[in-house]
């Protein structure tokens, strides 16, 4: 009997080593999402909730790249909308209109993303701070105009639709696409965490906090700014591709300034430096709409009311909770724990007398 106890304890210890691994929570999260998708396929979970989850996942891939740029490297860029749009049109054009196999499209798209990131990175070497934000805004506007006018590539203002997504000739249904989205989402989270904890992530933070110290420690500012922009553009293009295979339609008007502002809001509201915060923020800005608010009459009648909510959220969070909602939640948990401990202490004094543990 004792032997079995010991073996069970050893097993738990080995498993707990897994659970102490910093990525364990996200893997469990991924498994929970897969279960949710299975439920929604079976009809237990409502379709709109699952759509909001999927949208949140797609946009949080974009938001993760943006957060690496803003929260870690301290570079402001309002051009995300253009890059995401580019991602949608790349996969829509090469896989859809031209019918190339998926591997070739991936190569072309990711290569194009790296190229674009290098261009924007070189621009960022010359221009700093808020000038960079406005210049990237101009860049996004350029891209939007190109999307509107370059009909051969993007089908103009009517939008591009992308119906049959297939890998090696096997057509993939809408539900299977959701699984792909989940897998890519978890992979992106793991990649982001790896970058954050590596010397590159620390170099980004050094660049943001004190560039003199970073330079004196051997971090070439220009190289790391380039790397940051390349990573952010890659994430945005991958997010765009996921968007296209999920929504199957892309229109240039969507990739405008307010999309970039919403991504910025998601990152800021959730907390710019923690991955959980970013996912939470993206859900609040993009997913809350479909999941919760559509059930409330006021929001259905006035579709612009969500914007008021988002705007107030940004202002309140920046003014009073600069660490984002995730830090607010952690503070709340901490405070509640404190109250609980106090109450327990008082109860102990009541039950056991004055000087008890």
């Amino acid at each position, binding site marked *: 009997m004792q032997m079995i106890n010991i073996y069970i304890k050893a097993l738990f210890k080995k498993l707990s080593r897994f659970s102490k691994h910093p990525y364990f929570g996200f893997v469990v999260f991924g498994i929970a999402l897969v279960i949710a998708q299975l439920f929604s396929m079976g009809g237990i979970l409502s379709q709109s909730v699952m759509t909001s989850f999927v949208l949140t996942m797609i946009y949080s891939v974009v938001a993760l790249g943006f957060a690496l740029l803003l929260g870690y490297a301290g570079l*402001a860029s309002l051009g995300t909308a253009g890059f995401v749009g580019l991602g949608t049109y790349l996969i829509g054009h090469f896989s859809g209109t031209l019918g190339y196999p998926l591997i070739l499209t991936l190569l072309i798209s990711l290569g194009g993303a790296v190229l674009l990131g290098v261009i924007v990175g070189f*621009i960022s070497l*010359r*221009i*700093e701070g*808020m*000038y960079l*934000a*406005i*210049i990237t*805004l*101009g*860049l996004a*506007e*350029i891209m939007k*105009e*190109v999307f509107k*006018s370059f009909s051969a590539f993007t089908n103009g203002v009517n939008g591009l639709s992308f119906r049959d997504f297939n890998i090696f000739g096997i057509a993939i249904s809408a539900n299977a696409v959701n699984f792909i989205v989940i897998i890519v989402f978890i992979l992106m989270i793991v990649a982001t965490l790896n970058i954050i904890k590596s010397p590159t992530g620390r170099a980004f933070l050094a660049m943001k906090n004190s560039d*003199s110290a970073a330079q004196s420690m051997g971090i070439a500012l220009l190289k790391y700014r380039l790397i940051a922009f390349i990573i952010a553009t890659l994430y945005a293009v991958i997010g765009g591709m996921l968007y296209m295979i999920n929504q199957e339609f892309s229109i240039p008007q969507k990739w405008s*300034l*307010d999309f970039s*502002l*919403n991504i*910025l*809001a998601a990152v*800021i509201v959730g907390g710019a430096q923690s991955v959980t915060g970013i996912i939470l923020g993206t859900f609040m800005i993009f997913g809350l709409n479909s999941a919760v608010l559509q059930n409330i009459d006021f929001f259905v009648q*006035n579709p*612009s*009311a*969500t*914007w*008021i*909510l*988002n*705007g*107030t*959220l*940004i*202002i309140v969070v*920046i*003014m009073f909770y*600069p660490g984002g909602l995730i830090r607010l939640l952690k503070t709340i948990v901490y405070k509640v724990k404190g109250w609980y401990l106090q109450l327990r202490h008082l109860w102990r004094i009541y039950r056991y007398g004055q000087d008890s543990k």
Partner: protein
Amino acid sequence: MINNLLIVLVISFAIYFLIDILFLRKKSKRFIYRARLVNVLFVLGILSGFYITITQMTLYIFLQIFLLNIAELCVLALATTGIVLIFKTSVTTNFAQGTMATFGAFFAAKLLLYLTRFVDMSMTLKLILALCASAFVAFLIGLFIDVVIIRNGKNVNSIGKQMITMGLVLLLLGLMPLVYGLIPLTVEAFSYDVKIFTLGEMTLILPDHNYYSLIITVAILLVLFISLRFTKWGLGVRATASNEIVAGMMGVNTRIITAMSWGIAGALGGVAAFLYAPVGSQVSVSYMVPVQVNAFLASVLGGFSTFGGPLVGVVLINLFQSMASFFNSVWSNVIVYTLVLILVLAKPFGLFGKRTAKKV
């Protein structure tokens, strides 16, 4: 036109690199000479570009298009001055400039409808009243934003303040349909006549609306600049702009000055929106967005640190746009933005801006 621009660009780059490599490599004051070279090439390049394009376009057409675009020039100038004013006093780029202005324009349009229906006044009087109303409402919104939000966010750094303005954009964008309804409204121009005058052998047409908006804009900007240079208030604004804390210690009432700057910037935006409505389109929720983007690009082009620089940027962008839309209307925006991008890359702090170095 693109061919000309490319030729000019390539030639300027070639001259720059040749002179740099051949003459300046050995000198010690290389960077001062480089900067001067860039300035000279800039001026020469722009002038020659203009010259070539205008000869292609013929002077007559160029002047005509310029006169037709004066309204947009004035609108852009007002919007840009608003942005620069707020930047100088609160060290933030105000992304909500356009939306504050749209709010005022909506109010003015509603007021016009009300006046047309219930009160009997001449059209000009109604329009003047609506103009003042738009400016006043936008002024109030600017004041409100400063007093309620910016003042309480004292410990927010400048990036945070920028994001507060972005949040304000979303907030106002959502608020406007609730308050004013979803349908776009119209604002009529002061008059739809045109003025015809001759210059040499050319007969040029100047729409009345452009004429009046030019007068209004020049008057407002003159008043603003004169008061900035010569009055005590203007001195206070400039003092707060360079160092808010020390200005406060010297007795300048920084709170009133920042509040007034936000209000005045809002009023400028309101006037701009009112003047833009007859020209661009109807008053809808996002009709000032192109103007706002152009205003930001103009301020970046001109350099945020001066008041006059962005105005030069405004004129340049307007000229670029008129020329580009003549040659190729589909890609005109792309051409203009790319051109601005290249110019800003050549002078990263704006045409008249200055580089700030930090003491290590």
